[in-house]
């Protein structure tokens, strides 16, 4: 049994409940215990454009909270994962900045020490749990399901900071999907951005980015689009119809979280995986199951 502090971030615990539900269902099957800790805040990354010091301090604060419990951190959101990883890299190598940030944290009685490791779900599934263990759990192989994957920019860039997957040719999600019998296929737009972070100031352009990528996916005849990031998922799933309008296309692509698809193949019920919360046409998938 390995324990992790679940660092939820903002978007997942305030609206992307399907991600949280499916993670809480799937990971315990592999003897992973997720520990809920009080007091976390935003990681700060979406506010990096406003004030970078704020981003750094918020990330350090969250790491300090997890360290207090002596736990490593699981962060399902790639954006949070980048923020926390970058914060760790800076504070572990720059003593002056470390001191400065820790001064801010004093007010809340916190101290960043650098003890906690940070993992993301794909990293955890692929590198800690491993493909063989995933194969063992499969009850319903998703036979020949043609899958397009979307990792989310922050999961693989910038590699200089140390990202869990390769920046130009990531295959970790593909390996996981093959283990449950699905058929992931690479496509030219695979590592393109969803535009989600532009929602703050240029929401129309953000939707256009989303629409452009999803249109290509639809044209190529994929059965399902699989993502892991709550920001990307909000774009591709909840805003799919609007995104289609920006590129004059009627988009009907089922979009699921990786953890939801895994759950289905492990025989977990649709209810428990929050499948009724996906707003894209996931019923098209016809995966059986009640």
């Amino acid at each position: 049994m390995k324990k992790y502090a679940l660092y939820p971030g903002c978007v997942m615990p305030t609206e992307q409940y399907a991600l949280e539900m499916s993670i809480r269902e799937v990971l315990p099957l592999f003897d992973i215990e997720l520990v809920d800790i009080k007091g976390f805040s935003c990681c700060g990354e979406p506010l990096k454009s406003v004030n970078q010091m704020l981003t750094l301090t918020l990330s350090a604060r969250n790491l300090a909270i997890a360290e207090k419990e002596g736990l490593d951190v699981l962060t399902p959101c790639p954006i949070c994962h980048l923020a926390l990883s970058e914060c760790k890299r800076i504070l572990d190598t720059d003593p002056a900045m470390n001191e400065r940030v820790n001064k801010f944290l004093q007010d809340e009685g916190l101290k960043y020490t650098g003890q906690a490791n940070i993992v993301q779900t794909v990293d955890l599934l692929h590198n800690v749990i491993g493909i063989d263990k995933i194969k063992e759990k499969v009850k319903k192989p998703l036979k020949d399901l043609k899958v397009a994957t979307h990792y989310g920019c922050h999961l693989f860039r910038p590699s200089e900071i140390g990202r869990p997957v390769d920046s130009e040719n990531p295959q970790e999600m593909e390996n996981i999907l093959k283990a449950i019998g699905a058929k992931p296929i690479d496509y030219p737009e695979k590592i393109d951005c969803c535009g989600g972070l532009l929602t703050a100031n240029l929401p129309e352009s953000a939707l256009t980015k989303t629409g452009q990528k999803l249109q290509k996916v639809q044209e190529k005849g994929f059965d399902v689009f699989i993502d892991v990031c709550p920001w990307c998922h909000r774009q591709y799933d909840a805003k799919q119809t609007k995104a289609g309008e920006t590129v004059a296309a009627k988009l009907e692509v089922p979009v699921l979280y990786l953890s939801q698809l895994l759950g289905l193949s492990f025989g977990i019920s649709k209810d428990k995986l929050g499948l009724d919360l996906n707003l894209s046409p996931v019923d098209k998938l016809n995966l059986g199951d009640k």
Partner: protein
Amino acid sequence: MSITDLTSMGEPQTELQREINERLCKLQDEISDYCYQCAKCTSGCEAHKLLELEPHKIVALLKRGLIDEMVNSDVIWTCMSCFKCRERCPQKVAPVEILFALKNLAVASGKQIPGNYTAMLQSVLSIGLLQDVKSVTTRDNKTKSRSDLGLPEISKPTDPAKFQTMLSKIAVEKV
């Protein structure tokens, strides 16, 4: 504490401005000299086709010291933070980081912050998160809350007053 403390929309914050300016000067000295304008960054830029952002030109303008011009331009706010330019630069120049510094400087100089950033910031200040817990709608139009779905109570700062004190210091700290 109000949002103006952090973003200094009221009056320019000279300390913060000076610090970001130093960061930019450092970037100017150390990084922009390496750039030989191959434009690999721009060829991959996610915002290029759609919003005409040209990261290699941002580096060139920084090299020439045209910082005010960029801070006053909307184009710095078109970056999607996808980090492709930083990843692919053969000279390890990071236009995306220059853009972050420029946007920070724009905010610290009291320029209008575009779009929802102000609301997001205000939300983080008051509850610690970008937005508060929402009820969601299912595909068949049922409304569900976190607790309906069996999820535990959300994690947020336990002592908002202390949390806000900490955040306010970030803005006013004298280096």
